[in-house]
């Protein structure tokens, strides 16, 4: 899986957190958030990351974004090591790797206008003149399907879907090579979700940006991803091309996840339930035997 063609490569990463509590003098309990996680993303590719709570997918997102130091392992961008032992990463990395988060309103500073929000990454990059910055801001806001008139407004004046568009526009400002999307549509209404997913696809088609698309909804991930990685309790348990993973899963957990998807098809319900129950049993057994 490794190769110099990779845009981003995560190799064998471990992350542990110390837990609060315990008496003074006794060693604190530790929680293993990630163990031996390896992942690679190519240019123009969407890698979907699926997992439930406690799977470590958000921690992995933070590692890729350079926000979380690792105890072990390496992260490489275009073949060059990124020092993830320290909490800060170089500006050049920042420009190439951006993020969109789950809570659209929470990710936008309520005291800044849309124009200010979009201009900030450009300001920090400091490569454009004021005029050029403004042009780029207008370009961005129209790229995500909003209007010029929206630039002077504040985030609270927009709907959730529109706020997420603003967040996407901001992520695109400096033409990054990779965007990490952490549950970008989970907080949106179903009818809006598909709008945002389509927008993301259009952007990828026109700019060639890569995505690390993190979600708990396997159907959504399947639609947008080229490859899928499934996480459980800090490990990647299955990884491969999206259709392969979803049509012919190998790991019991992946099978359980797939069977748990509730398709809006009442006729198949009963059969699916039975399948899910037997898979849940099989998975629980597999855990018991390996621990």
């Amino acid at each position, binding site marked *: 899986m490794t190769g110099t063609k990779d845009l981003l490569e995560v190799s064998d990463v471990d992350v542990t957190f110390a837990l609060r509590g315990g008496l003074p003098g006794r060693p604190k309990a530790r929680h293993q958030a990630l163990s031996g996680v390896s992942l690679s993303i190519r240019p123009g590719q969407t890698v979907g990351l699926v997992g439930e709570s406690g799977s470590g997918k958000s921690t992995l997102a933070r590692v890729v974004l350079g926000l979380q130091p690792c105890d072990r392992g390496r992260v490489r961008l275009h073949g060059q090591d990124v020092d993830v032992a320290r909490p800060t990463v170089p500006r050049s990395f920042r420009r190439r790797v951006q993020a969109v988060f789950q809570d659209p309103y929470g990710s936008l500073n309520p005291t800044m206008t849309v124009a200010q929000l979009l201009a900030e990454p450009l300001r920090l990059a400091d490569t454009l003149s004021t005029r050029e910055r403004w042009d780029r801001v207008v370009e961005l806001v129209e790229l995500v399907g909003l209007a010029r008139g929206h630039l002077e407004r504040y985030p609270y004046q927009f709907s959730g879907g529109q706020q997420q568009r603003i967040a996407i526009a901001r992520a695109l400002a400096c033409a990054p090579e990779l965007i990490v999307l952490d549950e970008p549509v989970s907080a949106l209404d179903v009818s809006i979700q598909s709008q945002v997913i389509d927008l993301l696809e259009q952007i990828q088609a026109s700019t060639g940006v890569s995505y690390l698309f993190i979600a708990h909804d396997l159907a959504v991930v399947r639609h947008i991803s080229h490859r899928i990685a499934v996480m459980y309790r800090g490990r990647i348990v299955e990884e491969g091309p999206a259709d392969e993973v979803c049509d012919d899963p190998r790991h019991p957990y992946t099978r359980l996840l797939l069977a748990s*998807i509730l398709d809006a098809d009442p006729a198949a319900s009963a059969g699916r339930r039975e399948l899910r129950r037997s898979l849940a049993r099989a998975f629980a057994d597999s855990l018991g035997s390996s621990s």
Partner: protein
Amino acid sequence: MTVSVTDPPGADAPLATGSGARPPGRGRLARRLRAKAVIPVAGGFLALLVLVAAAAPLVAPFDPATGDLLHPSQLPSGAHWLGTDSLGRDVLSRLIYGARVALLAALVAVGVAVALGLPLGLVLGYRGGWADRVVLRAAEGINAMPFLLVAITLIAVLGPGLFKSMAVVGLVYAVMVLRLVRGEVLAAREELYVTGAAVTGASTARILWRHILPNIAPSLIVQVTTMFATSIVAEATLSYLGLGTQPPEASWGNMLADAQQSAFSQWFLAVPSGVAILVTVLAFNLLGDGIRDAFSREDTGNVLDARGATVAAPAREQDDDEPAPAADDALVVVRGLSVSFPVPGQRGAWTPAVTDVSFSIGRGKVVGLVGESGSGKSVTAMALAGLVPSPGRVGARSITFDGRELAGADAESMRALRAGSLGVVFQDPLKALNPAFTIGTQLTEGLRVVHGMSTRDARREAVEWLDRVRIPGAAARLRQYPHEFSGGMAQRVMIAMALSSRPTLLIADEPTTALDVTVQGEILDLLRELQAESGLSLLIITHDQGVVADLAETMLVMYAGQLVESGRVADVLGNPRHPYTAGLVASVPRNRRRTGPLPRIGGVVPAADEWGPGCRFRARCPFATDECATGPVPLRRVAGGSSRCVRTGEGLAFADPAVWLR
């Protein structure tokens, strides 16, 4: 001397703490500040005070230090409006000069406090680390000591005097400012927009200056106004004790000391300086309160005062078909339910959330109520249970439950209904359970209080219920607290709680939305089993079509406060009779090989003031015609259900994905 503390996060002061509270953008801010009358009034008074104090030499009628020893301790008269003190000095003049002292003193104290506390608090709160821990402990220790004692000790070193003592006060306040700022920064640091800024490459300085500070500013401003107030009292106290302003300079505090000396001979002397302190402090406090209220979060309403539905007149604009005559065994029949909420800030204005909804729930049947945000589905269910928070208004032509008419029922009857025949399961079990009480207490509460069981019997019943919802080790679990349960387990507890009173109807409001997908299936299985066992009716509210398909027999689809389609689940999902339902069905991603872009519904859900007279979906509907905008669209009966669309009968393929790809 009491020093004020910022109110804890609650209805009044949720400033920049956690993602629930948002300070408004600038435009809204100015409007909000103007809207609160108390701000300009208090602010105006203080501005006037500052002017008077600054112009003291011009305004005061007499020299505050020179006394007419021939006329000491006089009551107010024409010559001396507020009388004279024991040394014959004019009280009014001394009061005016005292104002100068008070305001200057407050400025010094607050200035020192903010200059020292703000930067330290910002840096320590953001950076953390050992420096933060050490300074925090020290700060807590200093704050724990009585303020006055600390001040006195420090003044002992510096010697008495106004500016020195106020600098000391400022030092102690700096510690408070530091703790406050640090706390706010700690909370703001966790906000997503700060993470976003870090990802964009902003430096720590920029994050603190542009992202954190503007968002914690409102809270700080409130604290600063309060600090002005307490500084004035502090100065007065220290001067009274002889440690602040030294005589013969006039300060409201040492005027009170004089007044105490003359207490037995001239009582009026006690009044002016005290009133001056009172009024000034009041003005600062009111200003602070006003600013805080201007920034506070919209009130989520009070569910304790929730009332049931009132009987509404049949104001039917549209001529809905009567839903299929409810079978004789219908448990719940709702006719013409409407719910509206008052518009904040505008008297007499109401926003409708639900308009004229009618449906029925058969005995032992499972009904799914589906919709997105703004559809009014949750509000409808809460209206049924009498749990719409006040000041919401609920009206219906009729709501019958098991033959009884609920429209017009009082709060006590609704309470009895909930205690016995109605159970509710909410979305987020970890929030819906009380963190300060054990599961056992909460489970048995209903049984003991409402059904009069003894504690022992109730506990036994509770264990049985926990077993029935498949929680292992039930007996031990009774003594645990909600935070010791996982989401799935906690939801099982909630189901047990709701079912323990053996209701005939269970309302489940998004019961699996907050849970992991593998747990979701288990909870739905559980609900299905329990429902089949006991024959209760189940109303399940959800946005997830998969959940409805899995659990329900019939479903109701709501959009923008109206019922737009109903029918058997297989029919509605397989062959939708309303464009909205069709769009929803087409746009949900399935576990299938990708064939092209996702079909989607364009546009957004309209707000209540955008509904207009016609169909509320017309702005987003690919099948809309002019007819759709002219007037209210009635709900028409169709085979096996109903649909609110003028084009239903035309045989159009609403669900054709191609339609939704444009």
